[in-house]
């Protein structure tokens, strides 16, 4: 993670500033350094520091799960997480800092697969923004989960609820009518 949140780069381990929001996103294979993120979430202007840990669970729809593997489209996942943060800046301009780290590769039950921090002056906008961040990530960030069950089977999860080819969420204006150019 970058040490200088005021810079704007599109490289990995990015940090971006948008309208006063400091945002750091990363998609990594190594275990998430939760303590570092907790320290990084402290902001002198923020009385509400919210954290969310998405954690590998030992069951899915009644089937015992022994481990998970996440696959990521790394470049786009980070780009999409930055778009999510831009949505926070637009909807809750008081939120001062957002950090999101998503891990990929194999992990055991109990591991943190995603860790989010939202730092806001007061709790109402913090709770709302945190909910928005995780919900948007679950809808639009290109990362996929494969569950390995105790019975030896495994399955990719492709939740289709609310998803279709033209489900481009134009209300959030991330989707463009012409391909963006690199």
């Amino acid at each position: 993670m970058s040490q200088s949140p005021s810079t704007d780069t599109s490289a990995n381990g990015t940090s971006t500033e948008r309208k006063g929001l400091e945002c750091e996103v990363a998609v990594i294979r190594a275990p998430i350094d939760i303590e570092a993120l907790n320290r990084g979430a402290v902001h002198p202007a923020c009385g509400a520091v919210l954290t969310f840990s998405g954690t590998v669970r030992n069951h899915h729809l009644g089937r015992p799960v022994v481990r998970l593997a996440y696959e990521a489209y790394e470049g786009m996942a980070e780009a999409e997480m930055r778009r999510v943060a831009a949505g926070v800046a637009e909807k809750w301009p008081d939120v001062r800092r957002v950090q999101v780290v998503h891990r990929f590769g194999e992990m055991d039950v109990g591991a943190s697969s995603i860790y989010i921090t939202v730092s806001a002056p007061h709790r109402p906008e913090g709770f709302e923004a945190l909910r928005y961040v995780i919900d948007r990530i679950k809808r639009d960030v290109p990362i996929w989960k494969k569950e390995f069950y105790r019975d030896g089977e495994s399955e990719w999860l492709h939740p289709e609820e609310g998803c279709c080819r033209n489900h481009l969420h134009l209300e959030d204006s991330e989707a463009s009518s012409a391909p963006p150019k690199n």
Partner: protein
Amino acid sequence: MSDSAPAVRRALDYRVHLFAVLREKTGTDIWTCSSETPLSGSQLLGRFFEAHPALSAMRSVTRLAVNQAFCLEDPQLDPNDEIALIPPVSGG
């Protein structure tokens, strides 16, 4: 070949990144689609699912991404674009 060789019409090769169930069921993380004429996103999706009928159930839920952003399917694609098929995501 010398510079005076007759111009040959070259096919356009679209390289399409595949993930998760699409990657596993096709056995490749890059599917190449050759076409004599430029393709739109929806034409490319059509070609992919015609070539992989076992995946046809994914057709209505797979999204197109161009240069790392979700994209409408009408515009013509450039073979230099970074193209990816995004099945429903399950991160978090």
